[in-house]
């Protein structure tokens, strides 16, 4: 055991600097992809509830696509497939777009369930005081939906953090690639994968703590 741990001590000075920069890349990937997924998700959720049958069908198709196609396939399509059509993204942005698209469908479903959980009377009351449909969405429906979907949305953030490790396979310089590259040169895979496992856990734990807090507060608010 001591022998196992002492390896970390011996290598820390060479492992630590690239690991820290890889952590920053992982965090940046996660947050950029999350913001993209939220934007896609909100638009698709609205599209699925629109009056236009075609828009509804397109958005439903998108949701089914992201449900059925693995994120890794989407990442490969973007990073390796699109350059064949002259569309080239670097590994980081290919990762952001792939993760964003992959998670956008799930986020759309969360938004949709949140909006549908609101009684239609809330919207009618907003229309009755003279709000336009847009104002009733902006000032009434959206704030209400966000209250409902906040806990599952925070869980989505954790899922994206974990899925960001897939971007190692398209060479985004993130945490998993750091471990993979180093493992292949040092022949210490157990040490390195254990290390990044702990780092992922350390990054996601505060997020899930916040999620649980928010959830408890929401439930307290609902049952008041």
């Amino acid at each position, binding site marked *: 055991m001591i022998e196992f741990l002492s390896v970390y001590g011996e290598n820390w000075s060479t492992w630590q600097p690239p690991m820290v920069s890889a952590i920053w890349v992982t965090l940046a990937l996660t947050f950029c992809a999350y913001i993209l997924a939220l934007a896609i998700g909100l638009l698709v959720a609205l599209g699925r509830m629109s009056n236009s049958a075609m828009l509804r069908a397109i958005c439903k198709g998108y949701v089914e696509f992201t449900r059925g196609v693995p994120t890794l396939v989407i990442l490969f399509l973007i990073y390796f497939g699109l350059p064949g059509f002259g569309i080239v993204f670097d590994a980081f942005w290919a990762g952001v777009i792939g993760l964003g698209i992959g998670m956008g469908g799930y986020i759309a479903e969360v938004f949709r369930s949140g909006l549908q959980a609101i009684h239609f*009377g*809330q919207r009618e*009351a*907003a229309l009755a*005081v*003279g*709000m336009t449909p847009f104002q009733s969405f902006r*000032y009434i429906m959206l704030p209400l939906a966000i209250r409902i979907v906040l806990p599952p949305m925070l869980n989505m953030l954790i899922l994206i953090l974990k899925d960001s490790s897939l971007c190692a396979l398209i060479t985004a310089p993130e945490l998993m690639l750091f471990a993979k590259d180093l493992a292949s040169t040092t022949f210490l895979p157990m040490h390195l994968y254990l290390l990044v496992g702990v780092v992922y856990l350390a990054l996601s734990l505060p997020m899930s703590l916040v999620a649980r807090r928010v959830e408890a507060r929401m439930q307290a608010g609902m049952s008041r």
Partner: protein
Amino acid sequence: MAEPLLKVENLHKSFGSLEVLKGIDLELAKGEKIALIGPSGCGKSTCLRCVNFLEIPNQGHIYLDGELFGQKKVGDQYSQMSEKELARQRATIGMVFQGFYLWPHLNVRDNVAIAQIKVNGMAKSEANDLAMDMLKKVHMDHKSEEFPERLSGGQQQRVAIARALAQRPKLLLFDEPTSALDPELVGEVLNTIHELADEGRAMMLVTHEIAFAREVADRVVFMDGGGIAEQGPAKDIIDNPQNPRLQSFLGQMLERN
């Protein structure tokens, strides 16, 4: 007779193949209070909801203060208004729902003030003052900082009434305002509506509270099967009904109470 405040002309409304309103004609004078009564499914709520275009009529027209409501007329052609224009007209009619529908993310004062800020562009402090005045009217000013979830049904409905009053509406619509309340809470809401009626506000009230309708309304309209079966001064209609359907309806309502 002076021009009516509200004129409902040949109103038809269907849901799919079900014709709910089969040609309603109705007028309401300034300051007049009418109660719509009738059995479930007779179309009284639908009629009320057509007045502010929460339901879009299939046929017929609504005029408020002489102005065509929810529609535009070009030549002889009627067409639907834009959402923006419709919203502006809706702001002049207050509506109180059976289910209250206060917005749970806003406190009581903001529930009353928000439309004045966001729709009418009123300054926040002015809207808050207005909200407090309206809450005083319904005796809810002491709860202005509370959130709706913490109020009883009767209190929520009184706040919903204040929200409608803050619109300084030409007309108030009440859609079964006490039907979702526990029996012991009905009184406080009816008292509030009674006080507003005494101020000479024009209102249209869908209700099952026959005694209340008799006391507060100037006129009672009995609807049956999507049409108006009988109407007249409240006391005449309720104490001395002519239509046999109305007689049996009132009989049932008396039995129930």
